[in-house]
């Protein structure tokens, strides 16, 4: 019997290898900065730091659940166990070498976290789940190499900016100006939460990565960096997907001859 070994992502160039690495749950994202739990809660804006979680049902252990084989098989996430409501974090990635991109983050979230539902748009990447599960993921998504304070942003709405030129400090445009560059400290500081509500206490998310570092860590192909056409392995994979779908879309038997 053959065994299945996930490849995560095809390709041999650096952006492709980075994708494969970031998605692979056996790889630990490199921690580049520390943000306190309290600051994560502040940034998300769903509850005040220290405030109890709002719930939509009692803790599961207090509920009489039906006898169900699926419930026995699937361990509930901490948020589900506690009955948390469903909340979100939403991230925007600049086209200018942000370490992550919406599809890649979504694939990574799907491999690495249970109970989170990620959506993909060009300018935003909403991730929804039980509140404490979202908080845990957000902390990892911001503290590690898959986030850059200047080219990645936390934005609940009015996300416009991923494709715009950078500002004079190299920051991605944000119409709501949730964050600013602190020139003295050299760090990016959020002065509003993800939905644009001004904060009582600012949240620092660290120093922007140098351009060369971004080039090493990004998952994005670019004409001024590494183009997708430079990666023959990946191109061949895409063409094969297209051909398989086109030739055998309504007749899976056809796949055998391709």
């Amino acid at each position: 019997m053959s065994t299945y070994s996930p490849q995560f992502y095809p390709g041999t160039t650096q952006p492709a290898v980075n994708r494969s690495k970031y998605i692979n749950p056996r790889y630990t994202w490199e921690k580049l900065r520390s943000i306190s739990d309290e600051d994560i809660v502040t940034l998300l804006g769903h509850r005040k730091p220290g405030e109890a979680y709002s719930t939509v049902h009692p803790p599961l252990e207090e509920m009489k659940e039906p006898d169900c084989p699926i419930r026995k098989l699937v361990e509930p996430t901490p948020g589900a166990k506690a009955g948390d409501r469903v909340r979100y974090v939403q991230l925007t990635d600049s086209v200018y070498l942000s370490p992550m991109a919406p599809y890649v983050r979504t694939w990574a979230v799907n491999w690495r976290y249970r109970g989170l539902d990620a959506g993909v748009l060009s300018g935003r990447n909403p991730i929804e789940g039980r509140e404490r599960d979202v908080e845990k993921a957000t902390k990892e998504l911001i503290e590690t190499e898959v986030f850059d304070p200047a080219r990645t942003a936390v934005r609940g709405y009015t996300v416009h900016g991923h494709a715009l030129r950078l500002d004079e400090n190299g920051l991605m445009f944000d119409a709501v100006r949730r964050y600013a560059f602190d020139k003295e400290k050299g760090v990016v500081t959020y002065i509003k939460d993800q939905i644009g509500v001004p904060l009582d206490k600012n949240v620092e998310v660290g120093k922007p990565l140098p351009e060369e570092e971004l080039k090493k860590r990004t998952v994005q192909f670019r004409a001024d960096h590494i183009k997708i056409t430079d990666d023959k392995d990946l191109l061949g994979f895409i063409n094969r997907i297209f051909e398989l779908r086109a030739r055998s879309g309504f007749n899976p038997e056809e796949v055998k001859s391709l």
Partner: protein
Amino acid sequence: MSEREKLFYKALRRKFKESPEEKYTTYYTLGGWAQDPRKREYKEIADNIAKERGISFYNPSFGCSGAGLGQRVIMPYLISGTKTYGMPEDIHFVNNAAMHQVWDDVRRTVIVGLDAAHTILTKRLGKEVTPETINHYLEVLNHTLPGGAVVQEHMVEIDPRLVSDCYVKILTGDDELADRIDKKYLIDINELFPQDQAEKLKKAIGKRTYQSLHMPTIVGHLCDGATMSRWAAMQISMAMISAYRLMAGEAAVAEFAYAAKHAELIPMATLTPWRRARGPNEPGGLSFGFLADTVQTSRVKPDDPAICGLETLAVGSIIYDQYWFGSYMSGGVGFTQYASAVYTDNILDDYVYATTDYVKKKYGGFAKAKPSMEVIEDVATFSTDYSLSQYEQLPALMETHFGGSQRASVIAAASGVGAAIATGVAQIGMGAWNLSMLLHKESLGRLGFYGYDAQDQAGPANLWSWRSDEGLPVELRGVNYPNYAMNVGHSGEYAGIVAAAHVARGDAWCVNPIIKVAFADPSLKFDWVHPRQCLAKGVLREYVPAGLRDSIIPPLR
């Protein structure tokens, strides 16, 4: 490919103060929404209206979640292929009178064959039908169709100023008959089309004769597309009764009505199902092939399939994306930004011509390549790489198409049009569109949005599906095709791919020769030869549409 001047470069210089290559700029100090003259104008007018009606009204300060619109530069837009710039508001379909008419001209049109009626007249009623009687009938119908009375006394008639755009002409492939029809009632194929196209069209239409009927634009506004064939049928019947002196109400008259409503009717668009809730002659039922046949650029530029594709794309994007999806799925600001990317700033023009140059050089001309997966891969890879590279080398261009769906539509359209031109097969163009989307998504790690991307991920799987209930040739698909029915930024492009394929092959029409000829009529209100120039007139507020109510209202203050 040799370096040539990018067609979009001038527009980028006009839009931004920095060089298009500059990656950095300043924000937040540009004057907010007040940097846009249209928004200033709207605000002033809206303030007065709010005072008059006592209810608050438009206020651009609500934009950007209260930060106010205009934290970045509000860009003017060049209408591609013209020298006309406008502000974004000028290309919202509600604000542009030419955009009203491009759809009105389609909705108000039905085509009805005359041969069945002539058979009834001659065989059943013993009447003589000659070119002279046909001319007389057309004169009467040009009276009844806009709301004039015949037969009965003391009828209520319509103010001619309200319906001055309403008329009927005929078309035929019979040169002998055409010669004897009064010129004012004839859509003259020989005069309007290049000789080779005219011969093909006449051969296809043969000796048959069709009426091209255009109901009043104002009726389309007040009623709907489904009204058109009913309106036409009643007036045709009345004109027949009057012109041929028939008994009003005799059984044979019902045959005229049946022929006009059903047997001889060619509607522009078919009925949409209940969940879309529109009758015939509404955008949801307009096939890509029919739309491609309305656009007449191929008559004047038969050797340039690229421009024919681009002009068709513009019309398709307005009708399908701005009108149809933009109203039933959105409303309000609608889908202007998604749709207008394909007909502004010469960006798609640049990508399409770059791809066309590549195709000409690689395959030795238009429609020379044998359809194959290899051609799809070759053209889509070149075109997608070229187009993506422009965005990545020119930050101003990337900022112009600030949404992923805009970039995806434009890039895939260039790939699709290019492959269609290479092979002369629209389905191959669709294949290149689909592959371009896959390449784009994997390159950037993003594409458009949820549902936008879903259509293109699933697209290759229904590319070759032609069996009933599973698919159709792309010419016969439309915005209500399964998988296309809830998605902006695709369908106008598909129509452009169809047009480019058929012009590349040297065809005189895409799907229906009768529609191609009907829309060659120079009396139509919209300019179907130069759609983008006509849209530009709308941007400048110089276009006068039909259906105005000035004659029955007090002068505007």
